[in-house]
């Protein structure tokens, strides 16, 4: 889907819930994956992803197309929601059951446990993420987007609304700090 098609879909999504569902289908995995790489916790990832898409729906009618992918806007919301989660909502779970019909708890639990097992297998990732999470949020954002989301500097600058030079500098300083953390443990 090119930018023009995506712009039309976003426009349509403001009138048609089906079009919004298409956007959701397209970006759910990407946003969930990004949040998971930022927090390395499945439960928090689910909560923050839910909050991100609910916020996106709430603000969809205020969204102005600025020739950048819709995902950039979702990343911005996700970043804010991660910060919000740890600042205000720590421990406060978002219950989708309150909004939707409850599903079989057994199935959900089983699926969750399988996902948890999968996550635990990525030991290197969990170790690296633990160190990244010690950095300031501004460094966490650029490092995760650059090395885990494989985004280009230009894309990161669009997502974070900062100049490319600023992103490079943040990346460099973040890596310097991260190097120290890695050095401590190695």
């Amino acid at each position, binding site marked *: 889907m090119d930018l023009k098609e995506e712009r039309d879909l976003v426009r349509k999504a*403001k009138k048609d*819930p089906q079009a*919004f*569902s298409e956007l*959701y*289908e397209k970006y*759910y*995995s990407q946003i*969930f*994956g990004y949040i*998971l*790489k930022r927090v390395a916790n*499945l439960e928090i990832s*689910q909560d923050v*992803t*839910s909050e991100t*898409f*609910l916020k996106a*729906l*709430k603000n*969809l*009618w*205020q969204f102005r197309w600025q020739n950048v992918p819709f995902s950039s806007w979702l990343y911005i919301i996700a970043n804010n929601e991660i910060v919000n989660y740890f600042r205000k909502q720590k421990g406060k779970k978002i219950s*989708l*059951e309150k*909004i*939707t*019909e409850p*599903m079989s708890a057994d*199935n*959900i639990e089983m*699926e*969750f446990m399988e*996902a948890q097992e*999968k*996550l635990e*297998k*990525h030991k*290197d*990732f969990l170790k*690296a993420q633990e160190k990244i999470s010690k950095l300031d949020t501004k460094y966490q954002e650029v*490092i995760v987007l650059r*090395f*885990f989301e494989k985004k280009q500097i230009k894309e990161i600058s669009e997502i974070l609304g900062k100049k490319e030079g600023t992103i490079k500098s943040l990346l*460099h300083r973040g*890596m*310097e700090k*991260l*190097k120290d953390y*890695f*050095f401590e443990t*190695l």
Partner: protein
Amino acid sequence: MREEDLIKKLEEISLPKIEIKSHKERLSLALIKKYPPERKRAEVFNIFKKLVPAGVIAVILFFFIFNNLNSQKYNLVKAKEIALQNNEIKDWLQQGSTIKDIKVIDGKAYILIEPPEAKKEQREPTPASLKSEGVFQENIAEEEKFGGALAEVDIKEKRVSSIEKLAPTVTNLIENKKEKALEIANKSREVEEIIPEEAEILDINVSTPKFRLSKEGDSVSVIPETETEEKASIIYQSDGNRWEGKINLNEERVEKVNFLGEIQNDATIDK
């Protein structure tokens, strides 16, 4: 560890590709359920957003007008207050004069003071007043003292900056009216037939002109009020008899000639 090594290390990390389908489905359902109320809310918000600028303008306009009206009202009250502290004006008002009109321009108020109405009415001749002409003359003399005035009040300095008496203007206007009344009477056949040629004119009564303030740009002027019915009366006397000719100045005609009766010999009457 060098930065390049760290970059390489990070790039080589095997990343989790996890998806929890049940969460995705439940969230999808939640979003579909929340879509209509959110859309409605957004529409209401959009209408509100459009109405806000209009509302703000309306509120500003309302306050501007309200403030303006209030400050005008305040200035009028203040000007009246200042004027009432002036002894001359205070005396006129105590003698029955009234404040007819106030206009405010650039921090200055112009106050028109009108002489008492009752005194003017006394000028209308009656047979009784004719019998005691001395009192009648006295009334005229008193009224000539004050024929109205225009006071200028400096609101900022809280003082009456000038008082202009309208007596000369009033006298001129009265004289003009008298001349006109006489001219009409002299041309009237009714007067010619009823009143003896040798009759002398004792008095010509005309109504005292009323004034109002007129605001033109940055200045205020006193102008006479146009009267709907301007009337005059001329008192004639001949051989101890008196007549009154009533004249309509607007229509330029004599309305009636009344015989007022014979004059008794009174010590107070010289003539």
